[in-house]
Each structure stands twice: as C-alpha cells, then as structure tokens.
C-alpha cells in the first residue's frame, strides 16, 4: 500500500469579496497517495482547481489541516512554502507560464538553482536531459514566445521535474493544446507515473481522465465520488473510457 503524501482534513475555502462570502470547498477530507496519478474532475465551477491549489499550498485554506509527508504545511510561513515549492512540488499550468525573457533551458535551470538539492553542474546537466526527454532539445535556447504551445508545455513539465519533486500538480495541462500536443503531453505524464512519479491533475478532458489510476469527482465544493483504476495501458484505453463514462453518467455529469 502506498504511503500518504498529502493529507487534507476538514478543508474549507471561502472567498470574500466586499463582505460577500462564497464557500468554494466544504469540509473536504482527502488523502493523496504516493505513486498515484490522481485526477480531480467535475463540472465548471465545482471547485476542482481550488482544491488543487489548496492541497498544493498555493492558496491558503480558510480552515482545516493540510499535511505533506506528515508535516503540517497549512501553518507554514511564506519562506517555508517557497522551500517546499522549490524542493518537493512541481507545477504545470494550463497556460504554460514560462518566464518570458528566459530561454526554455534557463526556465528549467532557474527552477533547479532555487532549490538546494543539486549542485550547479548537476542542475544544468539535468535540465538538458529533461528537455531532451521532452523532445524540445532543438528549442532549448529559444524564448517561450519563439516556441510552439506544445514545446512550451513540455518545457514546463521539464521545469516541474527538475528538482525530482515528491508530487507534480497539473492544472488542465492540455487545456490550451491541440490534439497531437495533448496526446504527447499525456503520454509524458503517463510515462512519469509509470516511473513512480506522483501526480495530482485537474482536468475535464476525458482523454486525460482515463490516464489516472484514481479519480475524484467534486461537486459544489465536496468530493462526492471516487473511482480506482488499474495503471494505464494503451491497449486498455477503450475499456477505461467506457468505465469512466459509466461512472460519470452515474453522477449525471
């Protein structure tokens, strides 16, 4: 049995704007397990991205407890959270979000420099290797604006992996990509999972959903259902799609 990576207890997230309060997450208790490719899905506005950013510490929760590897991170200072992001967490966003005036290689390397895990030469070598693995070796010295969406997103994944994070958080990573790029990115994430990388991903793309081995369905700020699947194999895609569709239909999605 996998260990618990992230543990969320009685998590509430309330947005306040000019005295108007909106409860986005309601009393969520969830464990994200090590080695899992966890997918969070739900209708638009259900709170799936909010849950992702709450569990990753990107967004402060209103109440509840959040732990990472048994450490209570919901009380962490800005400096402690920054260290966590540098050393343990990797992020992939829907919009690539690479620093506009750094090349793809520099975007990856800078993320490695800020962590104290590896020496400078190791960071540089690893950055090149990751970009090679992501098939963007030809574009590594170009600025993000000089590359395609797919190349940028693959570089963003490389950046997320530079410090060998405990977990990769991905928010709709294929949302802005065309079909072939989507497939490429999903294949990369699947391969990472196969190699032991824990991933927590938010998506409403059915093609992406089937890559996960644990699906969480969120509605009105609550996790209302969960589905466990075996690890993804291409030959099982059709049956996985069917299983997922039935599961979603049962929740009237």
């Amino acid at each position, binding site marked *: 049995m996998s260990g618990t990576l992230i543990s969320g207890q009685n998590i509430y997230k309330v947005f306040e704007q000019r005295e108007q309060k909106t409860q986005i997450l309601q009393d969520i208790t969830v464990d994200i397990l090590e080695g899992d490719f966890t997918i969070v899905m739900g209708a638009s506005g259900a709170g799936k991205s909010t849950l992702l*950013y709450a569990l990753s510490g990107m967004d402060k929760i209103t109440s509840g407890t959040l732990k990472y590897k048994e450490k209570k991170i919901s009380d962490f200072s800005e400096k402690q959270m*920054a260290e966590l992001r540098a050393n343990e967490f990797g992020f992939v966003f829907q919009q690539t*979000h690479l620093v506009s005036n*750094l090349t793809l290689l520099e975007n990856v390397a800078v993320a490695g420099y*800020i962590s104290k895990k590896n020496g400078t030469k190791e960071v540089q070598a690893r950055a090149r290797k990751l970009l090679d693995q992501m098939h963007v070796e030809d574009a590594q010295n170009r600025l993000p604006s000089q590359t395609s969406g797919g190349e940028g997103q693959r570089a963003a994944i490389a950046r997320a992996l530079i410090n060998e994070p405990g977990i990769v958080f991905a928010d709709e990573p294929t949302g802005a990509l065309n079909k072939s790029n989507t497939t490429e990115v999903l294949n990369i994430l699947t391969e990472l999972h196969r190699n032991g990388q824990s991933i927590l991903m938010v998506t409403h793309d059915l093609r992406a959903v089937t890559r996960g081995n644990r699906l969480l369905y969120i509605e009105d700020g609550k996790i209302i259902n969960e589905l466990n699947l075996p690890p993804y194999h291409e030959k099982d895609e059709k049956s996985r799609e069917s299983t997922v569709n039935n599961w979603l239909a049962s929740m009237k999605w």
Partner: protein
Amino acid sequence: MVGGGTMNIAILLKRGIQKHRGVIIGLFVLQFLISFSLTTALTIFTNSGSYVRHEMERLGFGNITAWVSNVNGVEGLVAEIESLDSVQHVGVQPLIFSGYSIKGTHSDDEGQLIAYTPDQYPYKFLNESMRGYHNSTSIDKGEIYISPAMKSVYDVDIGDTVRFELSRTDDIKEFTVKGYFEDPFMGSSMIDMKSFLISSSDFEELSDQISQISDFNVLAREGDMLHVFESRTSNLSPTDFNMQINTQTNLGSYTEFVYTSSSIYGFMLILQNIFAGFLFAFVAVLIIVSIILMGHSISNTIELEFKDYGILKTLGYTSKHLKAVQILQYLSGIISGMIAGLIGSIFLAGTVSALTITSTGMLMSTEFPYFRCIVALLLILVILSSFIGIKINMISHISPVQIMTGEISNIKSAIKIKNTIQRKCLSFSLAMRQLLSEKKRYFGICIVSTLLVFFIAVVQRMDTWIGPNGEGLMDTFSVADHDLGVQPMRDVDMDGIERIISSYADIEDTYEIAMQGVMVNGVNYTANVLNDSSWFHILSGKTCVEDNEILITEYVAKDLSVKIGDTLTVAHNGKSKDFKISGIYQCANEMGANIAMNREAYSKIGDINSYIWCHHYILSDHSMNDEIMKKLQNTYRTDIAVHTNSWSGLDGIVSTMHLIIYLMYVIVIIFIFIVILLTGNNLLRAEQRDLAIYKSIGFTSNKIRMAFTFRFGIIVAIGSFIGIVISNVTADSIISVLVKMFGIGEFHVKFSLINSIMPAVFVTIIFMVFAFLISHKIKKVAVVDLINP
C-alpha cells in the same frame, strides 16, 4: 454607436483616474515642484530687480555714483560736472567715512555715516520683525539705523552698540542700534562697505569733532556721495559717460571709488540671481524629467491596456474618445499640480522675502508677477500636452479585430545581448536579463539618473569651489592667495608683528599689495599692485614683469574693448602713463572691474613710499587666522588694519550655497521617489505574471524584491556613471559661462574621485531604497493570480 458621449467619457475618465491615481499623484507632485519653483524664481527675479531699481531712483541714485573725499568746496566740483552737456544734474549726500566695530569685531572695511534727511533722501525703515515698514521720520540723538544684512554678518540686534573710531587716540563715538533701514546700494551682505543712518545733529557734531583732530591722528574723514544723472539726450554708454566725466572734470582727483547704476544692481542682486538661477535650472531639469516619465507611463499603460481599448472600440468608442480620456487623465494631475504650486508660491513669497532680507538687505516686494507666471506655466502646459498628444497617438492604431483575433500578442524578439544566468548571483543575473530584454522601459530611468547626477555634481562642484568656509571663493575674489593681511597705518615694528604671527603659525610666504583707485583710459578701476607679480592668477598671456606692463581682467578687456598687446593709459593723482597689456588675469573683486600692476609700474604714477602697502602672509595653519587677527588688533589697535582672507558677504554666499545643497538633496530624494512611484508601479503591473511564476517555482518575495531592486541599481548606476563623465567634462565650462557675470574669468575644480562618485552613489542608493520599498507589492502577488489574473 455609443450614446451619451460626454457621459460615457466621464465614466471612463473617473475609472481611469481611480486606476492610475499613483501616476496622477506623481504628476501632481512633479508639476507642483515645477510650478512652485518656477513662480518663486520668477517672483524673486522680477521683484528684486524692479525693487532695487525703483528704490535707487526714489532715493536719488544717478547713472553714476561717485564717492569723493578731501574736496575743498564740493559745490565747485558739482558745478563743474553739471556744466557737461551729458550731465542733467548732480545730487550730493554728505557722509563720513569711518572704521567701526560691533561686539568687539572690527570691520574689514570702512562704514559711511549719513545724516538722515527725509525730505531729500527718504530711506525706508523696517519694523522690528523686518517683515514690514514703520513710519518713523526722525532719528534721535545717539541712535543709529543699520542695514538688515549687518544681522547676518555681525549678529547685531536692536539695542546693541556700534563704535566708530574717529582717530588713533580715544575719539570714539558710540551709537545704539535703533532699527534697520533699506539701503539700495550697500544693503546687501555681498558688499563689505556699509551705510549707517544717524541724526543730522549727530552728523554735525561728528563733523566738528573730526575737524578738530590732527591730521596725524585722524582716521575718519568727511566726504560726499555724488549722484550724477545723465542727460536724457545723451546716448553715452555707462563706461563712456564715466570716461567723459573723469577726463573733462576734476572728479578723478577726489574719487575714492565710482560705480555705475548697473554695477550697483549687479552687486545688490547677486544672491537673488544665484538663487533664482538655481531654481530656473532646476525647473528645466524637472520639465525634461516630467516628459521622460510621462512618456514611460503612457507607453506602459497603453501596452498593458491595449486589449481594453480594443474592446471599447468594438463598443463604439472612437480613438478620439479614448485619447480625450487619456489626455484629461494626465492633465488632471498636471493642471492641479500647477495651480497648487502657483498658490503655494503666492503664499510663500512673503516668507521668502522675509527669510532673505538679512542677506539681500531689502524687503523684496511680494507683488506676484501674475502675467509672467501664467504665461510661463501655460507654455509648459502646451509643451507637456503636445507631448502627451504625440505619445497617445498609438491608440489610433489599435484595431478591435486584432484584439479579438489575438493578433497582437506580447511577442518578444530575440534578446541581442544576453547575460548568463548565474546561480551564485541569481537575483542580479535575473535583474540584468530583465534590463537587457526590456531596454526601452528603463531608458527613461537611465536618462533621469544621468540628469540628476549631473545636476548634483554641478552644484557640488560649485560648493567645492567655494570651500567649506568660502576660502575658495575668496581666492577667486582676492588678488592673490593669502591667509592674513596687515596694513601699517603709520610706522610700526613689522618684525614684532611677524613674531606675533609666527608664535601662532609659521609664515610660509609673504608679499606686499596695494589697492589704489586709478583711471584707465578715463574709466575708474581699482589697481591691484604687488611687489611680486608672480602671485597674480594668470588666465592668458604672461604676468606683468616689466615696469611698462599691466594685467587686466576679462571684464576690463570687454569693457574697454582691448586685448593682450594693446596699450592703456593709466592715471593716478595727476600722473598718467601708457602701459602694455601683458596678460589677462583672474580677480573677481569689484565684479572684475580692476587691473594689476607690479610695484615698479605703479611707481611711475603713484607714491610707493606712503602707507598704502598691506603685507599678506601665507600661514602653515589657516585655523589660527582669527586668533592672530584679534591678537594684532588688541596689540597695535589703530596703528594697523588687519584682515583675514574673508569678507562679510561671504557668509551670505556660503549660507545660500549650503541651503541650496540641502534643498537640492531633499528635492532629489522626493524626485526619485516620484520616479520610482511612476515607473515601479507600472513595471510591477506589467510583470505580475512573471512574478507569480517565480513564486510558483520557489522564489521567496524577498528574493524577487532583490532582483527588482537590482534592476534599478544597475540602470541607475549606468546613468549615474554617464552623469559623472558628462559633469567632469562639461560642468566647469557651463559654470564658467554663468560666473562670468560676476567677474570670475575661469571656473575650475580639481578632479576628486570621491567628490565625483558621491552623487552617483547617493542617487543609486536612494533609487534602490525606494525601489525596494515599493516592491513590497510583490508580497501580495499570489501564485493563484496565474490562474485568476
């Protein structure tokens, strides 16, 4: 089609002002500074000049004023002068020349006692606070009125005593200071000689007393001020008028010194002109910087909000509407700042006048020159508005279709010069990369820092040249360098005097100097005579070595239209001789109206054996000058006249300079804050996304703030360096042009690495401090902003 056009523009304008209030506030403060400085400078400049002229006319000063003494029957001399066609009439003011002391301090120069005759010369008396006048029309026995400038020079108050030494024996006359009066000639602290008003009865008594003192013992003497008015039909220049009177009458035989009305204005207005000049220069710098900052702000704003403009255009707003909103936004800050500055200046004009009276000697009128100020401000408004109009023209090129189809995007071209991102100095590397990739954004800041450093460096150079106690300035105004001057008034033991001096400090060098009034081609100048002509500060040519050579200043060269190699006729006490101009030398005394000769040359026209020689000493320890002077004065009393290398007007200039420097640094700090406010906020807005990205990969707010601060540090350091180079290369030449007005032929400051670097270090540090402070907004940037921008 957008309906209710004005209403909709009003909504956009209101929202725009709310959104860009930081920029508008910054513009308000900038324009306030510009308007306040400009209108204050115009008020000082306009009112000072016109007031001095008005008072001089009212008090009967003519085109030329001659101070004469030892005249047997001044009426005869007056009649002789009035017989000239070019002379309308001559006014006569009797006076008594006398040395004096206040609170134990002896004056360097003689004072002149004048009988107060309000029917003929209605001087104005100031009230006790010196912020207004009182209507007294009489002076009682034993009372004396002095110039307000005496307060800054001698710290003399109402009720203090002024002692006049009429003779070498105990003929002392004391007066009690009753109040202050405005003297439109000698009132300024720039002028050593001072006038004193006493009652007519006291004046007569003094006159009688002096006449009874033996020639051997008498120190005070009677004389007159002759106010010579040029006839309306005469078109002679002041120099030619002076020349004609000297050559066609006996005036030259009795003249102690002569000044034209223009040279008197010059003396009286030096401090005001320096102050106003500084403000005008400052305003020019501010206007340039305003334009740079506005350009930066407008470009950034349009770049960030181009999508909004496109959307508004799809709703029916035209480019005209949108440009009108932009112009009105900026003008709201500009115009309100201008008005506030104008109002501030009106209210503070009285305060400025009151603050400066102890330096200027006159209560400057607070009448506001509305027309000049409004015209000047309107001109600046036109310049700024035109600039805004040109800059916002890019709004016309925003097409809604491009926005909708996403054609316009933030595509960056390849960075031509790239630095390596180093782990060891990551914040610095990232800062450098930001600068290299967004050069345009930072160009304005570079220019601003160049200007600020240049401005500070120029003022600093002037301060260095003046010296902490004005010694540098004294060297410029003095004939030759010295620490102490001792002039025997009779036979004295010079060896004994030098022993006293040596007991305090070693005498490193010495020479003798005499300053005599002469006529050069019929024009009155002072001749500075040295026994060793190598002491003169030569600007061009060579010093006057032969007995037929003289030196002249650049002022005299211009006044008489002569050059090196020409011949001038120098006359003194009835003798005259031709001398060749061997060189141009530096001496700003009398605003440059002086010549130089060696002892042998002077012996051709004057008596070198009389008590005209002052012994000047260079000492090993300058700090003992005042003590030595006091010791000599106490020991030898009226047998010698002692002075240090200083003059009463110096304190006024040094104080003014220090005030200018303090003000300048304060204003530069405020200025840098406004620049950072305007540019820093824009940059943070533009880089919101990148800041969130850095946070998402583990950068702390402080690390990002350091990178942000370093950017400013780097670009300001570059701009400052350019400012240092430009100031070192050009500042002396620029200042030389300005100081020529005061008779100073050359301005040069020795290069000092520390003084050169200091302004750059100061500006860079202040920029970085404010950049770091304003970057606190980075703390509020949340990573979730990447998802919810």
